């Protein structure tokens, strides 16, 4: 045990003298949290819609008035009147407007005849978010248009009442669990993997190998010191990130304790995985090259930025074994739902089993000789 502690002491003394390491490990996750959180979290606004009224009847005027109301109310759309439908379509193709709402010449007559009156929305679908928002706004507008002038006293149609269990969760809060995982991963890679291989290349490990230290003691020492560093990074990011994202009651003691347990389990799991990957590596460039690939493979399938239910089958298979998946799930449970341990036992169990398997494999693969 004294040898494990000697390695931990050495690593932590070095870590203490490199404060930039912890700053660097948190910059990217924090920037990502703020930029992505606020970039994706808001509603789409001020979409330019060309209105081509070829009818000019009273019903058509009502449609135009409703469009203008949407423009000055929710500001989802900004309307521009066009007389020439060809010019409107040309501007759509050139990206000057996002959609063209055409009211055809027979619209008013068909309304009065109740003969399938139609308006057309030609949308620029190169941006799915924009076209979906546009279609949704115009559909809502037409839904309102189709409402009878006087509503029935007792509605005969079925309606849906949605009850949200938790307060509104902005996207920046949704991203926070993934950002915590990423800060842990960054520290694991920079403060664990890259330093480990650099030390190896500099010959520092020769110093260890000529002592009577065992393979298990070496791996355990590196894992323990890496875990401590990653826990520090993860906990700081969790605290700062909670304040930025506006997580309710961020300093509730029991929740902080549960979060600490998940951070420790995640850090130990990721450092074990990292040493398994690095145990036979000698080229200092390799961990740097692997960094981006690993980040992508672990982070994006985890459900940190998008629900896993939307993934293709092969990506769901990656997500099923990805330790990030379980860490992100556990952090979401604690941060967004404020659950207890009973909701995350499975996640903690997976992270623990993954750690034990990775550490055992790394110990077996570790070479006691040069």
């Amino acid at each position, binding site marked *: 045990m004294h*040898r494990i502690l000697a390695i931990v*002491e*050495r690593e932590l*003394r070095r870590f203490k003298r*490199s404060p930039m390491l912890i700053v660097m490990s948190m910059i990217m996750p924090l920037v990502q949290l703020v930029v992505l959180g606020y970039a994706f979290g808001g509603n789409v606004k001020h979409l330019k819609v060309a209105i081509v009224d070829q009818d000019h009847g009273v019903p058509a005027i009502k449609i135009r008035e409703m469009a203008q109301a949407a423009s000055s109310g929710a500001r989802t759309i900004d309307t521009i009147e066009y007389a020439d439908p060809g010019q409107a379509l040309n501007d759509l193709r050139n990206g000057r407007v996002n959609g063209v709402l055409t009211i055809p010449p027979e619209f008013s007559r068909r309304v009065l005849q109740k003969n399938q009156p139609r308006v057309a929305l030609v949308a620029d679908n190169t941006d799915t978010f924009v076209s979906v928002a546009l279609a949704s706004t115009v559909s809502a507008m037409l839904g309102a248009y189709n409402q009878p002038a006087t509503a029935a006293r007792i509605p005969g149609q079925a309606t849906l009442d949605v009850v949200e269990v938790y307060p509104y969760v902005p996207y920046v809060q949704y991203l926070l669990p993934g950002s915590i995982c990423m800060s842990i991963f960054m520290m694991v890679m920079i403060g664990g993997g890259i330093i480990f291989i650099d030390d190896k290349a*500099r*010959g520092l490990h020769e*110093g260890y190998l000529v002592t009577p230290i065992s393979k298990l003691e070496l791996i355990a020492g590196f894992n323990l010191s890496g875990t401590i560093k990653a826990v520090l990074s993860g906990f700081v990011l969790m605290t700062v990130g909670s304040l930025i994202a506006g997580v309710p009651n961020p300093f509730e003691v029991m929740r902080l304790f549960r979060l600490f347990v998940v951070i420790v389990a995640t850090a130990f799991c990721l450092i074990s995985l990292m040493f398994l990957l690095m145990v036979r590596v000698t080229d200092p460039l390799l961990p740097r090259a692997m960094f981006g690939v690993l980040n992508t493979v672990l982070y994006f399938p985890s459900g940190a930025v998008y629900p896993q239910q939307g993934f293709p089958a092969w990506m769901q298979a990656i997500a099923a074994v990805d330790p990030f998946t379980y860490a992100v799930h556990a952090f979401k449970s604690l941060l967004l739902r404020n659950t207890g341990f009973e909701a995350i036992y499975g996640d903690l169990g997976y992270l623990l089993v993954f750690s034990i398997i990775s550490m055992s494999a790394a110990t077996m693969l570790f070479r006691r*000789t*040069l």
Partner: protein
Amino acid sequence: MNAIEVNNIVKKFGDFTAVNGVSFAVEDGEIFGLLGPNGAGKSTLIRMLTTLMPPTSGTATVNGHDIVKEADGVRRSIGVIPQAMTSDLELSVNENLLIFAKLYGVPRDRRKKLIASLLEAVELTQWADKQVKNLSGGMRRRVEIARGLVHEPRIFFLDEPTTGLDPVSRVAVWEMLQKIKQHRDLTILITTHYMDEADKLCDRIAIVDHGELKALDSPLKLKASIPGKNVIEVSFADPPPDWRTTIERLPGVEGVTEEDHVFRIASASGPATTTALMEAAAQMRVPVRSLSIQSTTLDDVFVHYAGRALRDALQAATPQDSPFMIRRG
């Protein structure tokens, strides 16, 4: 009991044989040198003896422990200074020693005293709290020497400890090693490609080249074992074809080698041979470019046994390192 015994040890890397059937024994308490040029197999040999590399065949024991079967026993008995500087640059001198004392399980009550005495021995007491990255190359090497001795090993391995150091630092390292040796029951195995280092430090020297042991004895006996008491090195501008035969007939000459009109003459009487050589050159009108006369050195011993000059070493060395710097043209 010998401190180190090596029996017919071989190390192969694929088709390349780095160490080829080397056998020797190092007696308790002696300073034993492995001398050879870069790539001779010295480091591979030391890595096998320090358990960093398994041998392909053959056996060796260190402090009575087999290097393969009782590797931990070997590790407990030895201190090792690898060729590369392996101290932690971010840690202080004291911290470097402390961490290794803990790795070796030196009891808490002895650590402080031991580290203090080692720092004093390598004259780094006043630098104890400085980060290693702020020290010079020579001081870093002294940190490593102290680190290698922090658990009081019985056998100390140093792999080219003075490579890359300036001449003053090299001499300082030699003196410290000799001082440390005086106060401890220590056997030292040192590899070097510096002839003067081996000559000054070692009780016995094994000359290694191409992975094979070429000669083994004390520096004095090795020097006495080759022909000539002096070596005359003389360069001629345009010697006639039979010039070497002429030189071989001069008084006192025991052997002549030639390379690019540079003749190395082993002589039993340097002054007599030199006088006769100058007279012969004047008579035959052969212009002399340069001439030097030296007592026999380990360099001559190496050339005699290994059959070629230490080109790698000479290229890296400063003029003070070798009296045989050849200036041509």
